[in-house]
């Protein structure tokens, strides 16, 4: 024990020296190749928000074709090239690029880097009372694998033949024979996967090894538990996709037949490859990652919701231990359900029953988590701050997303619904008014921590309400379209009678999407203009968790003195205390 305090003093002295040293660090080492988790967190968050916006723009363009198939797009249509929008009308190949790249960018370059790279990097060390992540240089390396990967991904658009256009899922044989953009996609994915792997190692070691004195496992904020489980998912589920990407690169560049079956005929011509491969092999390896990936998308969001709800109901989370065990169980189960994305590939009934069963089981921890959140509201003194608005909306939105997953997880009903717009509605409900709303909640909640300023609450409320209405306008009608049998990834839905029957909904959806874009303007303005507002209070939300023990924004090394933890994470409204919150870091609070 004495050794660690000696080391602690030495460490504090070093940190102090480093703090002084920082005034002398050149610009490029302080802001570009920084090893400080806070700088890296902001880098990830800003990059991810830019990519999210770009991915959103791709979708807005795609929605024109769906609402007004074959019609030239006014103004913007003339700005794009003749190969993508000849005469202002979207080419089918470009439509496919927009679809594939929208999904890829939102998942791998938007949500995960923001939720894990951004929020995780910035908040986790602070919430556990650590001076930084366990491996600061590895942290920097992760970001600098991510950004080139993201840029390379976007460069696909200027490749001959355009960007990847075989879906975000890159199914062979199509992806094996597709244009150069697909190779770029694969190379970019290798970089993005590497970034996540390095980051996940950092998170796990940091959370296990660098917790402050007194911060036992069951005193950690739920946000940290969520990031912990998420990191295991990234660590163990991503490598199979990396392996598969290497094999697809071999197919494309070295002419192998990992995913090409024998006797494949393309446009009437026999494909001259050895054959003997399996397109299903790709699907297995892809979905082995991609299913845990969706829990990577939701777990950090659930973590944010937990923090915001506890803080704005002024009472402890209901069922904290239940939440922790559910998150762990959810993480584990996420590895055993992947083939529910493959029910229509001809699997025998034994295996499809196995995956149907595990899929039904995995809905249990999700329901438990949602129930705990809802129960947390009961009896609370609820403050409808902007973060709380987003967090409250998350609950029914995630519920809709989760419930609509059930007919997809049951093999019988999936026969009809697979690859329809029902699927798109389902997963977007979880990710868009689910995760993205949680991420907005997190931005509004932690903005004072990162910048020392408060965002404008009125603009925030406008942002929330208009977004909430528009986002439901986008995704609710999709369930109807799906049940009418409308396939996803269709360039022109009106070629089918059942498509024409629900075409009016496409118009509603597209206008809601463009409305959602407008709704983000107050947010973007707020985000930047609030930097010039007067300094906010040190703990403006009167929160209990450790990040609020540090100054806002925290200096290099985070805490002036190493924090000590005295109690559970959500000691709000404790009977007999003068204040309605008892921070974890305050000794013997009255």
């Amino acid at each position: 024990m004495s050794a660690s305090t000696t080391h602690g003093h030495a460490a504090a002295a070093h940190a102090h020296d480093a703090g002084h040293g920082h005034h002398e660090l050149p610009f490029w080492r302080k802001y570009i190749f920084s090893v400080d988790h806070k700088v890296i967190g902001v880098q990830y968050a800003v990059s991810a928000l830019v990519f999210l916006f770009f991915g959103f723009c791709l979708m807005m363009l795609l929605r024109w074709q769906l609402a007004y198939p074959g019609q030239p797009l006014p103004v913007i249509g003339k700005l794009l090239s003749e190969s993508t929008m000849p005469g202002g009308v979207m080419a089918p190949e470009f439509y496919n690029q927009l679809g594939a790249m929208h999904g890829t960018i939102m998942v791998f370059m938007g949500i995960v880097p923001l939720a894990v790279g951004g929020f995780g990097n910035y908040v986790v060390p602070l919430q556990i009372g650590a001076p930084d992540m366990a491996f600061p240089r590895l942290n920097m390396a992760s970001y600098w694998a991510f950004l080139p990967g993201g840029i390379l991904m976007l460069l696909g658009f200027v490749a001959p033949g355009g960007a990847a256009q075989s879906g975000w899922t890159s199914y062979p044989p199509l992806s094996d024979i597709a244009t150069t953009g697909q190779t770029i996609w694969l190379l970019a994915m290798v970089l993005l996967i590497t970034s996540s792997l390095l980051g996940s190692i950092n998170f796990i070691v940091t959370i296990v090894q660098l917790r402050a004195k007194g911060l036992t496992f069951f005193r950690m904020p739920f946000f940290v538990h969520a990031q912990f489980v998420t990191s295991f998912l990234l660590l163990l589920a991503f490598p199979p996709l990396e392996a598969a990407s290497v094999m697809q690169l071999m197919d494309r560049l070295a002419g192998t037949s990992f995913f090409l079956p024998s006797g494949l005929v393309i446009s009437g011509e026999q494909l001259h490859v050895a054959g003997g491969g399996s397109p299903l092999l790709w699907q297995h390896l892809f979905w082995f990652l991609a299913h845990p990936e969706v829990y990577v998308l939701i777990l950090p969001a659930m973590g944010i919701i937990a923090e915001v709800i506890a803080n704005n109901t002024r009472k402890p989370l209901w069922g904290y231990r239940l939440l922790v065990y559910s998150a762990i169980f959810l993480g584990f189960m996420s590895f055993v359900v992947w083939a529910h994305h493959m029910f229509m590939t001809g699997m025998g009934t034994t295996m499809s029953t196995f995956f149907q069963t595990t899929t039904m089981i995995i809905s249990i921890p999700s329901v438990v988590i949602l129930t705990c959140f809802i129960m947390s509201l009961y009896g609370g003194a609820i403050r409808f701050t902007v973060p709380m608005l987003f967090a409250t909306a998350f609950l029914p939105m995630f519920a809709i997303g989760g419930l609509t997953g059930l007919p997809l997880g049951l093999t019988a009903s999936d026969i009809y619904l697979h690859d329809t717009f029902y699927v798109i509605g389902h997963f977007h409900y979880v990710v868009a008014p689910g995760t993205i709303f949680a991420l907005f909640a997190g931005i509004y909640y932690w903005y004072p921590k990162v910048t020392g300023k408060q965002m404008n609450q009125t603009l925030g409320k406008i942002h929330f309400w208009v977004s909430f209405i528009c986002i439901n306008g986008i995704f609710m009608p999709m369930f109807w379209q799906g049940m009418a049998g409308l396939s996803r990834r269709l360039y022109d839905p009106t070629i089918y009678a059942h498509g024409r029957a629900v075409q009016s909904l496409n118009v509603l959806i597209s206008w809601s999407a463009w409305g959602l874009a407008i709704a983000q303007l107050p947010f973007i303005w707020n985000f930047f203009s609030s930097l010039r507002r007067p300094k906010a209070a040190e703990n403006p939300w009167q929160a209990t968790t450790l990040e609020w023990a540090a100054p806002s924004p925290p200096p290099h090394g985070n805490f002036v003195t190493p924090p000590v933890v005295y109690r559970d994470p959500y000691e709000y409204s404790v009977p007999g205390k003068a204040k309605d919150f008892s921070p974890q870091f305050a000794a013997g609070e009255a």
Partner: protein
Amino acid sequence: MATRLAETAEHSSPEEFKKHLGKYYVVFVALLCLTAITVGVSYLRLNRPLAITVALIIATVKAGMVAGVFMHLISEKKVIFAVLILTAAFFLLVLLLPSFTTFESSAV
């Protein structure tokens, strides 16, 4: 705690450490022998299932020795074991389940 830290340089002298070296040499020789055995067995041209079983058993024994002795797993801490057991479970899943789905399949 002192005994658990016995492996650090500050707690055992170079002379004491030298005694531990013996086990590494034993494993080295064992690995070479098992390599010879596994190649020798392949010349017996056993039937496929048996050949696979024997080869995998020998490989697992070799791997166990590398992991247990060279990588010090045999005296490693619980937290590492926990991570590896979890990994082993998922490894088996990814290794076997995809092939299982092809067995009853009605697809090509």
